[in-house]
């Protein structure tokens, strides 16, 4: 399910079945061209990942709008806010919360997050059309969906 009126309509007819929340964590920076381009590429590739996961598991995963934050070494303030998201989600039918990100700084906060972190090293190539990138993404998405299944 995605955050749109049609899917929400369906969600409310079958709430008990859609027990998994997926929140993409996207870093944004204003540092310099290189870092900003990197952030943009991660945003684009990251959305491909989460949309593909949602497509596989539409009937059980709810994909939230992406959570954007300013790039930082220390993400503890963001953890507090995300845990509020997770707590609110828990008041609905959501039993599993997954955070998806390419930003390695989340690794340090993993144990403080009230949910499971799906972290992947960022794909370097900016060309999401290339054959290589496509097969890498396809393969990684398959691994992530297998991982999610083990939590169910």
């Amino acid at each position, binding site marked *: 399910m995605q955050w749109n009126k049609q899917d929400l309509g369906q969600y409310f007819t079958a709430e008990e*079945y859609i027990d998994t929340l997926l929140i993409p964590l996207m870093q944004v920076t204003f540092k310099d061209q290189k870092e900003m381009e990197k952030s943009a590429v991660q945003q684009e590739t990251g959305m*491909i990942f989460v949309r593909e996961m949602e497509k596989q*598991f*539409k009937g059980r995963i709810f994909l939230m709008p992406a959570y954007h934050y300013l790039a930082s070494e220390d993400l503890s303030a963001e953890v507090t806010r995300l845990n509020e998201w997770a707590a609110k989600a828990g008041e609905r039918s959501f039993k599993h919360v997954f955070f998806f990100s390419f930003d390695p700084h989340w690794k340090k906060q993993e144990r403080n997050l009230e949910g499971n972190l799906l972290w992947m090293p960022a794909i370097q190539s900016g060309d*999401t*059309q290339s*054959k290589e*990138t*496509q097969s890498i993404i396809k393969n990684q998405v398959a691994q992530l969906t297998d991982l999610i*299944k083990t939590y169910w």
Partner: protein
Amino acid sequence: MSEKRQQVSRRQFLNYTLTGVGGFMAAGMLAPMVRFAIDPALQASSTGEFKAVEDVENITEEPTRVDWEIDQVDAWYESTVTKTAWVYKDENGDIVALSPICKHLGCMVTWAGNDDYPDQFYCPCHDGRYYKSGENVPNTPPPEGLDYYEYKIEDGTLLLGPTKPRGEA
């Protein structure tokens, strides 16, 4: 194998064309999952709803996944959407092309997706199951069988069109 190479360049060409018409974002998101099985010659002629997906002689009695792309236009975006079907020949040698979308809440089913049911379609979301025919297995969540794709065969190639629910078959 020179034909294979031609196929790739045609596809790149298409991607660039899409980029040109502003479909860049959507193409970027949806292109990754595609296995191109489209004969370039046919692709040009199948501008309608049917798309060439596979050579009929490659289709066996074992349901096999095929992916292809269609262009979708709504009021605001033109985008490329990846479609998937499970395709096989039944005992009479007739083609069966089933939609992978679970009739419960829309997850993707896979043939033999659960080791306990090697001859059924399986939905990992809530253990929905379907027989090879696509009929839903009673007492699993799906309320009806998988949709069919309408199909055509032209010059030994399978073309798939829109899906239709079982009730209307």
